[in-house]
């Protein structure tokens, strides 16, 4: 008789249960692996489809199959015969400028609310909370008309759009304030005793310690305009040269355009998704930190 069998025979009830435990664990782990694989497939399929269809040459409309019968770059080439490059530049400019300015504004706001105790601090925060309960879209009606008077709509939509994006960005201070709150206040105090002004405290102590949240803020500030539809739709108001990619590509899926542009939409989508996905993958760590911290702080 082998040693193992002997052991099994003499196993006490507790030992037997232990072996059962191992078996259940293996079983439940297998189930979880199956689930995770299924999830990965479901989550990636649409993106795989979009990528495959962007290479389809034989037809430009929607079909019931995924794998192209004829492969080629026709759709990508065709993109450059449309206003797509213009939309792309518009989006990129707006997103880049917004990322820089919005980050500055958000950091100013959140640092102040985290570090200074002034009389109007609490009322101000409450006021912004209440303001945030109004649907932001409501303000578009008036902003559109004011911007139109200023000549910042339609063909000149980009500067107007940037203005709209950054104008109220101070209200999105929650996540970074939550981060600043975790930096001990005694660091500020030590620096102030050491002879630093408030500005020097920000520059020499807080900012070097806030790299994750600065990157998170830049990233989200960039991704917002990159995928924005509503505001861009409003401000470009049907003028193709003022559109961003979201508005432009959305139009290609209209009833009268979809037959000719469906695969081009896929190609455009791929081109739009690539830079931001690459950026995101590189900075994923910081994004995760920001999102987790922000949710806990509320």
């Amino acid at each position, binding site marked *: 008789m082998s040693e193992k069998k002997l052991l099994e025979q003499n196993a006490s009830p507790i030992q037997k249960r232990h072996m059962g435990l191992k078996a259940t664990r293996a079983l439940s782990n297998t189930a979880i692996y199956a689930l995770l694989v299924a999830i990965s497939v479901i989550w990636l399929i649409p993106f795989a489809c979009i990528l495959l269809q962007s290479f389809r040459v034989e037809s430009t409309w929607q079909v019931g199959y995924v794998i192209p019968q004829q492969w080629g770059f026709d759709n990508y080439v065709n993109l450059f015969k449309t206003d797509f490059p213009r939309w792309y530049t518009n989006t990129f400019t707006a997103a880049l400028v917004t990322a820089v300015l919005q980050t500055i504004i958000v950091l100013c706001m959140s640092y102040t609310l985290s570090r200074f105790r002034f009389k109007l601090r609490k009322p101000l925060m409450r006021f912004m909370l209440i303001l945030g309960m109004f649907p932001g879209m409501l303000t578009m009606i008036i902003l559109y008309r004011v911007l139109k008077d200023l000549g910042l709509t339609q063909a000149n939509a980009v500067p107007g759009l940037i203005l709209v994006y950054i104008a109220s960005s101070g209200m999105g201070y929650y996540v970074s304030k939550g981060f600043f709150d975790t930096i*001990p206040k*005694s*660091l500020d*105090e*030590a*620096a*102030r*005793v*050491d*002879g*630093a*002004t408030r500005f*020097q405290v920000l520059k*020499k*102590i807080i900012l*070097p*310690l806030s790299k994750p949240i600065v990157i998170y803020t830049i990233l989200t500030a960039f991704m917002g305009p990159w995928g924005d539809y509503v505001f861009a739709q409003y401000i470009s108001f049907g003028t193709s040269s003022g559109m961003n990619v979201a508005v432009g590509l959305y139009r290609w899926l209209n009833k009268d355009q979809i037959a000719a542009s469906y695969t081009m939409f896929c190609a455009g989508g791929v081109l739009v998704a690539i830079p931001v996905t690459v950026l995101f993958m590189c900075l994923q760590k910081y994004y995760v930190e920001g999102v987790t911290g922000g949710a806990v702080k509320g």
Partner: protein
Amino acid sequence: MASVKLTDVKKIYDNNVIAVHDFNLEIADKEFVVFVGPSGCGKSTTLRMIAGLEDISDGTVEIDGVVVNDLQPKDRDIAMVFQNYALYPHMTVYDNIAFSLRLKKMPEDEVYEKVTNAAEILGITEYLTRKPRALSGGQRQRVAIGRAMVRNSKVFLMDEPLSNLDAKLRNQMRAEIILLRQKLNTTFVYVTHDQTEAMTLGDRIVIMRDGIIEQVGTPTEVFEKPSNLFVAEFIGAPKMNLINTKLEQVDDKYYVTPFGARIKVGGEKGKELKAAGIAPQDVVLGVRPEHIVLAEAGSESAIPCTLEVNEMMGSELHLHVYTEDGTRLIVRVPTINLTIDQRNELVYGKKLYITFEGKVMHFFGKETGTNLIYG
């Protein structure tokens, strides 16, 4: 190097909680003053008001004769060590210590000299290129002190600098702070909740409770002449025993009658009572554990009691006993005075007799709680 003077200093928070009531204190040049008290007594708040980290609601703070109420911390010429060290995590030890000097735009070679000099004194030279994260608690503490040291400021403020260290390290750092003080020879204000630290470090101790100063005095004064029950209990470990009893006067002699025993208040204490003209009355009698001795049965001054817990501390025993009416007392007995047999007998339930002499007694008014002689 400078004097610090606080006049009627008050701190009232926005929610109308008063953290510090009319605080008056003059700290002489080169004096080492310790603020001590339980948490929430306003000691840290007072220190932070001196530092300029907390607004002063009322009154004035003067450093070297100049009112500093409206000055920013950076303009007060103070140095401060924080409880959690507050080291800048993104800077090396060298940069941490050099931070204030660089803000003053001091030339780099001078900075180098000062920083290495301070590091030498504190024994952290080999860590200068490390980040604070890579240091132990004691080393961080030294860096924090070094950062304050290089500034050569008028006043040195320390906010519970040792409370994050373990007991052994704390004793060691305490001794080093005493040495440091001799080297720096400047004015120190030190905040702690630990009475041992206060007693060993301070030239003078300020004992606070609920934002009010209970007593200011040298360690000897506050230990031997506590002005009220709070100070009496707060200073000294284990705590002073407090006994409700009567002070009686027969002819010129005073007696106390704790737990049915009758003990004469002799010597100096008796004279002091008489000089102060204290009338017989109900008092709270305070006796420190180390002043209680074991006694023989039958004497008029012996108090019968029962042993509950015997804590062996090495050089001494802490005996927790209760008297016939259930009052709990602590007695400190030096081990050296007992034979092994005697020690072995001291177990739960053992009947004992204890007593104490008149000269070690403290008398407090039953209603007021203030010291009848010194209060």
